[in-house]
């Protein structure tokens, strides 16, 4: 599976984490390309404090409270679990990194494996049976 992860908001990142869990249960190989706004969420200083949601924004407090009530792990935990259980590679788009003032891999959370260009995404997308844009 190849996932073009554009969103930097916790609602969509949480959905991505659930899908990653499904992929992990099936031992699926996953390539994640962290694009524009998602690179903001992957910055070390933002990952845990960012609580933006992109949809139904007027119910944000209810949404976040429900995640807590249901025992839903933070998206970074869900991603980490998937990485432990199956082959998940997380690539930060170099351009997106620079947009958010991240020049080096070390500027992003430890889940990130490398910084890459769009060519790798195209190759990965061509080879995958499942392609998602979130």
């Amino acid at each position, binding site marked *: 599976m190849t996932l073009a992860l554009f969103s930097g908001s916790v609602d969509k990142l949480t959905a991505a984490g*659930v899908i990653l*869990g*499904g992929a*992990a*249960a*099936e031992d699926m190989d996953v390539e994640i390309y962290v694009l524009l706004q998602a690179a903001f969420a992957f910055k070390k200083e933002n990952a845990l404090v960012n609580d933006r949601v992109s949809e139904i924004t007027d119910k944000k407090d209810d949404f976040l409270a429900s995640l807590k009530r249901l*025992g*839903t792990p933070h998206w970074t935990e869900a991603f980490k679990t998937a990485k432990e259980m199956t082959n998940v590679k997380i690539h930060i788009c170099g351009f997106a990194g620079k947009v958010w003032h991240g020049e080096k891999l070390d500027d992003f959370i430890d889940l990130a494996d490398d910084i890459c260009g769009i060519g790798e995404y195209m190759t990965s997308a061509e080879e995958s049976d499942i392609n998602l844009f979130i």
Partner: protein
Amino acid sequence: MNIEELKQIKVDKSVDARGTSCPGPLLAAKKAIGQIENGQVMEVLSADEGTRRDIPKWCTKKGYEYLGTVEEAGFFKIFLRK
């Protein structure tokens, strides 16, 4: 297996995933399946309706034998053989 047979079955591994929501129970099952031998029986306790449908499909894909589900008060016991 019918419900009575499932209630009598000897379970080698029990996974209590009632405190987690989807995909928590499925991931708990995936983690635990590595801890039992081929032929052994595992039960997954889940309060998540979706898991009841996911585990049989997961078993088919992974080559495990789905044995059946017993509905308890507020949760499911889902049985499979590795």
